[in-house]
């Protein structure tokens, strides 16, 4: 991905240096009119603070919840959001697109 993400990762480094436990969420696939391109990233700490964006706001809440689980579990997982998905009616993409997101522990 291009430059805009560089600052997110630099901020993540600062968070790690402060001793915070983090997860990294990355858009790995998109279909249709997904709002953020593949490679877009969100960094989440164990208290649910986050920087960056994976969907322009549509599914960040759900991703943050999953990310806190990932920080606890210590292993990554793939999430999928979209109108074709059951959960979409709760946390779906208003644009009608579909995205897959990989969430992993960052720095530990």
């Amino acid at each position, binding site marked *: *991905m291009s430059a805009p993400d*560089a600052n997110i*990762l630099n901020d*993540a480094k600062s968070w790690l240096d402060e001793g915070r436990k983090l997860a990294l969420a990355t858009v790995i696939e998109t279909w249709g009119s997904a709002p953020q391109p*593949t*490679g877009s990233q969100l960094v989440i700490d164990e208290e649910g603070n986050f920087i960056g964006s994976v969907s322009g706001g549509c599914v960040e809440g759900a991703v943050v919840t999953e990310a806190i689980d990932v920080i606890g579990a210590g292993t990554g997982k793939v999430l999928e959001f979209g109108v074709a998905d059951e959960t979409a009616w709760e946390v779906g993409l208003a644009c009608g697109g579909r995205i897959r997101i*990989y969430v*992993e522990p960052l*720095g530990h």
Partner: protein
Amino acid sequence: MKRELFDQVLDAKAERRPVAVITHLATGAQRLVARDAAHDDDLSDVLDTAFRFDKSQVVAQDGEEYFVDIHNPPLKMVMIGAVHIAQALIPMAKATGYDVTIVDPRGAFATEARFPDVGLIAEWPDEVLNDVGLDARTAVVALTHDPKIDDPALQMALNSEVFYIGALGSKRTHASRLERLREHRFSDETLARIKGPIGLNIGAKGQAEIAVAIMAQVIEHLRLGGEAS
């Protein structure tokens, strides 16, 4: 991502070295691949085009899914001319992810006061552009209208692999520019890389709108390879 790998990614970005992080999605196993070592990787076929088109993607191999995350160096825009249009173009270039460098030998134009927060080089373009680095992640826009300043920069851009070259000026100005450059033995095919009059034709008036037209054309070349215009 383990801390060691993460630090390697950040180092690569800081040093403008292209790298990819490859994640085996089922296990989370990860590896870092430098672009110049990509041909030795199991996914070498995919990596070459992924780097070239800056395209992170999921790849299936032997029934397993891998996410190839491309970390290319930041995009760069080199503006020849510390002029009015540059002032309008800078915030747009920054917002879309470009590191901006201004080159203008005229000290009265190239002042910190007029251009805060960008790389500002008050030298002749042909003396500094090699150091600035004209690579495939770079766009060059010539904005001075002055052949003494623009032409040498355009020649260097034409001899490089920059993905976009644009030059400000009317159709007539551009025609005489091409005439001058032909004398330096550039073929018509090569000269066609220079977009002039610069920018998409949206009837732009004034510096801000012209900057939008330029930025749109740069994005078009980056994302579509400039096929549309």
